[in-house]
Each structure stands twice: as structure tokens, then as C-alpha cells.
């Protein structure tokens, strides 16, 4: 699984980071970044949760 954040859409609320801190974090500009090339299997569920919780649908997991 890969996770992608659309930086133009992200509002930096940080919900993805609190939902799935091993995959997402906020950079110094308070924009979410994906820290892994491939989402490890044990974090796939929480990456999907992060996608669902994102209030502006900025996250894609595929």
C-alpha cells in the first residue's frame, strides 16, 4: 500500500498524524507528509483510518 498526501489540499489539522503517526507527520510548515515509501502491513489499517478521518480528503491510499 502507498499513501499520498495532496499538499495543496492539506490544511494541517494533524488528524492523520494522531491517527497513524508511523505513516504521517506534519512538516515544519504544518503540512502532512508521508514518511514511508510503502506502508508497512501493520499500519495499513490506520493509514486507511487516516484517509477516512481527513476532513478535506487530501489523503489517498492505494
Amino acid at each position: 500500500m502507498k499513501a499520498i498526501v495532496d499538499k495543496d489540499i492539506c490544511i494541517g489539522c494533524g488528524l492523520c498524524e494522531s491517527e497513524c503517526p508511523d505513516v504521517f507527520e506534519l512538516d515544519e510548515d504544518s503540512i502532512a507528509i508521508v514518511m514511508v515509501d510503502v506502508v508497512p502491513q501493520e499500519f495499513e489499517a490506520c493509514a486507511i483510518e487516516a484517509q477516512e478521518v481527513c476532513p478535506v480528503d487530501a489523503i489517498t491510499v492505494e
Partner: protein
Amino acid sequence: MKKLIKNNVNWVGKVDWELQKFHGDEFTTNQGSTYNSYLIQEEKNVLIDTVWMPYAKEFVENLAKEIDLNQIDFIVANHGEIDHSGSLPELMAHIPDVPIYCTANAVKSLKGQYHQDWNFQVVKTGDKLDIGNGKELIFIEMPMLHWPDSMATYLTKDNILFSNDAFGQHYATEKLFNNRVDQCDLYKEAMKYYANILTPFSGILRKKLEEVISLGLPIDVIATSHGIIWNDNPMQIVEKYSKWANDYQENQITIIYDTMWNGTKKMAEKIAEGIGLADTDVEVKVFNLTKSDQNDLITEVFKSKLVLIGSPTIGGSILHSIAGFVHLMKELKFKNKKAASFGCYGWSGESVKVLNELLDRAGFEVMNEGIRNLWNPDEERQQEAIDFGKSIAII
């Protein structure tokens, strides 16, 4: 004039009796509102939030009667929206160097609105601020409840949670506390506030409520930023929020329509009649959209298990009033609700099909193809509407 909340904590806000619209014209506030600001006077003096910008001058003048402004050590801005931060420019003109404690997103919000580089002190969940006399403020980020920058602040020893917009209501009163006001009025406004503002964030709210409860902080008072302060069994509103955040519904079916020559109105009434005949327990309510308060109707949708939307066909589609309301229903991301549609027509009758598509896109489970009627319904067609109501009541 200040009003005592508890020990050295006073309310220094503004009661806005005449407010009838909020968020521009998006939210009706039929019972006015309050903007709650709080002054904590321990070894350090702390101001929590301010009031809406039109009342800034009055707010600062009143505050200066309670405390020498230069004695204010810290300001906490739980949320950057203008109804809470709108007096900061007026206040900071007097005390420009006082630190403002807020989230990183609130810095963006405040800078973006007021274009001032005040002494911002960014805080995160769990950060503490010593205010003397053995008391601390603990900050709790509340992202998307209901803005990215939202935050709550907890005062130890006094056990007060300054919750900002969470648990609030647009409800003007001088009585200050929840146990002094009419409970029906209070809960009507609290539910309206939740339904119209917090519904889209219910999933986030469920987790945040669990997180706040898991912190194990004793809560004696929930000091909101609008309406009354919960001091009598404050956890009652937390429990209500837990229920409301879990795809809330009552045993209610709501029918909302607009009509041109009363044909769609007649259908609405007959469908309601059928529902009432098939199920004597269910609460069925019928509203002409244009004669109703749209935010109150959203509360009715919030309470419903099934919503029927009616529009005649015009221009090969639906009335713009109904289109606007269905858009509002979509924005609020209701979950676990069913829907159906109906409408009269004189030419080609597309309204029901259009409504079904819109309701589906709004996240409602569309129950059937709906019912439409050419011209005004005669006796036979009225009976069909009654039968439609009966059939949909037992789905």
C-alpha cells in the same frame, strides 16, 4: 460586569440578545447567543478568549474595570474564529507584548485575520502553564472540533474545562449556569448547535471524547464559549455528545417539501397520513421548507431515521430552495440515514430522479424510486401517496 464562575475565575463575556443570524446568514440564532470570555486571577492573571469584534470596545472597557490591563500576564486563544478572537486587536493595542497561548494553526488563523505578529506561544496537547497558587493550565488540542486550530484549556484544582465551541449553544441568558435555565430551551439549542456545526466531525469527536475521558481529569465545570456554562453535572452534556456522535437517530420520519401549486404539498400530507396509519409509534413531521427555519429542519433531519424530500419539477429539475437544502444535508455528512423522494409535475417529471441522485450523493440510503404525480393528485393518486407512506414506514 464580571460574574463569578468558581473561586478566582470570572466570566467577562458579552450576552448578545439581538443576534438572529450567525456565520453570515448560515445559522439562525433565534434565542440570541453569548460570547464567553473568562478571567482567571491567581498569582498570574489569565484571560481566556475574547468576544465578537463588534463588541470589542465595550469588552475591553468592561475588562479594564475589573483588572488593570497591564496586570494580565497571559492570554489563551482557544480558537481563532472572530466571535472569540475578535476583540484581540482592540485589547492588544493596550498590551501588545502579552503572550498569546494557542495552537500552531491558531497562529495562522490570527495572523491571517488581523495581520499582526503578536507574541504567540504555540502549545500542544499536554503542555502546561503554571499560573501560581499551585494551579496550572493544561492545553488539549481539539483539531476539527470544529476548526483545525480548535483547542480546549483545563484549569487544575478548580477542575474547569474551557471547552470553547464544544458543548456550546447559541442561547442568550443572564443566568450563566445550566441548572438555572429552561432545560427544553437549553437542550433544543445544544442539539441544534451539534446538528448544524459538529455533525460532520462526529467520528473525530468520538475519539476525542475517549481521549479526554482517558486523561482522567476531574471535571467540575465545563465553561463553553457560547451559551450557558455546565456546572451542574457537567458530564451530562459529554454523555449527550457521545450519543449524538454515534450516528444518532430517534424514531422519527421527517418530510420536507417545497411546492408551486400545492400538488407536492398534498402528496407530503398524504404520505404522512400513510406513515401514521402504518406505524402509530413513529414521530412523523411535515415541513414546508420555505416556511421553516432551515437550521431547525437540519435538527429534525439529525433526529430522523428516514427523510423524505419533495419538489415539483421545474426546468427539468428541482426547485432551487430544495437544491440548497439538500446541499446543506450533504455538507453535514449525515450517516446511517435513509431517504426517499416525491414530487408533482406537469410536463416531464424529472424532480424525483434528480432528488434520488442528490440524496445518494449526500450519503443517504435511497429506499426506492420515489413517487411522482402528473398534475394535482386526484382521489386515486392521493390513495397511492397514502400507500407509499404505509410502505415506506415499515421499511
